[in-house]
């Protein structure tokens, strides 16, 4: 699978309430990420299609449940196919997670086991997805409050093995790396150094919040500085095409989102601040 080399820039997840701001500030958002599952709804699909004619779009899905030890749901796959046929994004993505098992819909992302069996079943599905749709498929790392017992390797080893075996790409959620590292007590740069950064096409950038002593990926808070530092490390070492600012709740004024996007854009474009130079020195 040939990965696109064109740089999309910095974008936002599309939400209908953003429409006015997208009209008012056309230069602030380089691309939009459409949640594929929302596009199953014909009226939202119509909106997405109209927008994608003037703003580049990528497709992110929530329900492939690629980590489940059963075949991909054919009915869901038909819907995915229709969305991709209509929107024709440069790639599509979903999470390295389990969201549905034998008809049980968890409604959220639950972790997979870090085992060879998972590598095998996810790789098979990733290969199938790329072959069926003829475009790159990216796997996103999730946050998890716990690790299933019996792990044979680390989370980054798991991701690396799947990417190497299947040829799929990575949608790297740097905030999820930060959150998991904080909660599990490891260095987030171990994660970043452990994965094939040359396979990172897209990045998710978001905020987190502490709840009961645990850091939670909230999608509702500003991006903390350490996450921007992780972003900088990744951008320095990978062919990142697109950075998405995730904000689903506690929506601030558009100016605030635009400020975070500008900061991300400056990192993507290679601008370096004094703080980032220190970070690099520390990492060297």
């Amino acid at each position, binding site marked *: 699978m040939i990965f696109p080399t064109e740089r999309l820039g910095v974008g936002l997840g599309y939400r209908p309430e953003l429409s006015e701001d997208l009209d008012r500030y056309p230069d602030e958002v380089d691309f939009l990420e459409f949640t594929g599952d929302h596009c199953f709804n014909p009226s939202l699909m119509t909106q997405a299609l109209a927008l994608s004619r003037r703003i580049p779009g990528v497709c992110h899905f929530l329900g492939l449940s690629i980590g489940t030890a059963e075949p991909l749901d054919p009915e869901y796959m038909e819907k995915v196919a229709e969305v991709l046929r209509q929107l024709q994004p440069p790639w599509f993505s979903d999470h390295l997670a389990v969201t549905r098992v034998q008809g*049980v819909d968890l409604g959220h992302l639950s972790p997979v086991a870090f085992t060879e069996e998972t590598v095998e079943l996810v790789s098979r599905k990733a290969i199938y997805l790329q072959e069926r749709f003829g475009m790159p498929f990216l796997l996103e790392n999730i946050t998890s409050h716990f690790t299933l017992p019996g792990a044979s390797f680390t989370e980054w080893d798991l991701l690396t093995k799947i990417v190497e075996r299947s040829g799929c790409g990575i949608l790297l959620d740097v905030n999820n790396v930060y959150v998991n590292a904080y909660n599990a007590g490891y260095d987030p740069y171990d994660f970043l150094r452990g994965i094939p950064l040359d396979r990172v096409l897209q990045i998710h950038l978001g905020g987190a919040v502490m709840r009961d002593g645990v850091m939670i990926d909230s999608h509702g808070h500003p991006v903390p500085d350490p996450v921007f530092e992780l972003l900088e490390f990744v951008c320095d070492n990978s062919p990142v095409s697109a950075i998405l600012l995730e904000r689903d709740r506690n929506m601030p004024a558009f100016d605030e989102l635009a400020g975070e996007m500008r900061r991300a854009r400056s990192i993507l474009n290679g601008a370096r601040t004094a703080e980032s130079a220190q970070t690099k020195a520390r990492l060297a």
Partner: protein
Amino acid sequence: MSLLIYQSALARTYLDANLRRAVRAGDQSALAEFNLSPDEFRHIQQLICDQARHIDLFATTLQRKRVERLDLAYKLLRGRLGPNRWKLLCDQYCAQVAVQAFMTAEQDCARFGAFAKENLDPPVEHADRFEDLLTFERTKAEVDAVLVPRYSGNAPSDPLPAEARPCLASHACLRVLRYQPQVLADWANGVIQQPVPESAPVHLIFFRRANGAEVSVMQIGRWLAALLARADGRATLPELIEQIASLSRQHMALPDVWKSMTALASTGIIVFSQPQGEPS
């Protein structure tokens, strides 16, 4: 143990607090449906016990997300009930449905509508408005679509015979509102303090075709709504008009009723049955 069985058993334990308690207490019958060996049961028990705090936190996240979806789908009902009563209803629902057959998020929201209808017990004087509110939000949750009039191309092209008997389509998703959605929203948000009068002149019908793909909403007058309510495929139109004549001083001419009925038939809301042996 196969990975699939392991994942299924885990999914159940994430979603069901009672099940987690039972597994932690060593009750093997709690996961009996998965036919686990004692060793396999112990494996899951160990996970749930060793990482109890994090598993429970994850389960809380699942429930929070679930309630957030209900919050969005039933915004008006939530506003009308107030935070405490709404929370109680959601908690009751999540506790009950966790041990039932599982469903998609959309089905979950739709099922909540049925649950709320059974368990809400609204004040008698507001019962009809609560019922309409639930019908409205539940239908929206089910179809997850903007409801706009959409007519099919299946309108009968030939005039129907006078003996044809209209019948309201019996599909489960056919629903009738007595009040306009905006009136319901105003009432739910407290903008209208007084109860909406029973004689509200406009009714709305939500309709979803059997394949779930087509959705229509139609606004009709009270007179026609009364006619539809009696359209069971047994009476002809003239007979139906006669039945409801007492409801309105304004007499509706048969040709006008035909016109309305033809429009309804084009959406599939009305079907016509005819006496056997007669040409269509």
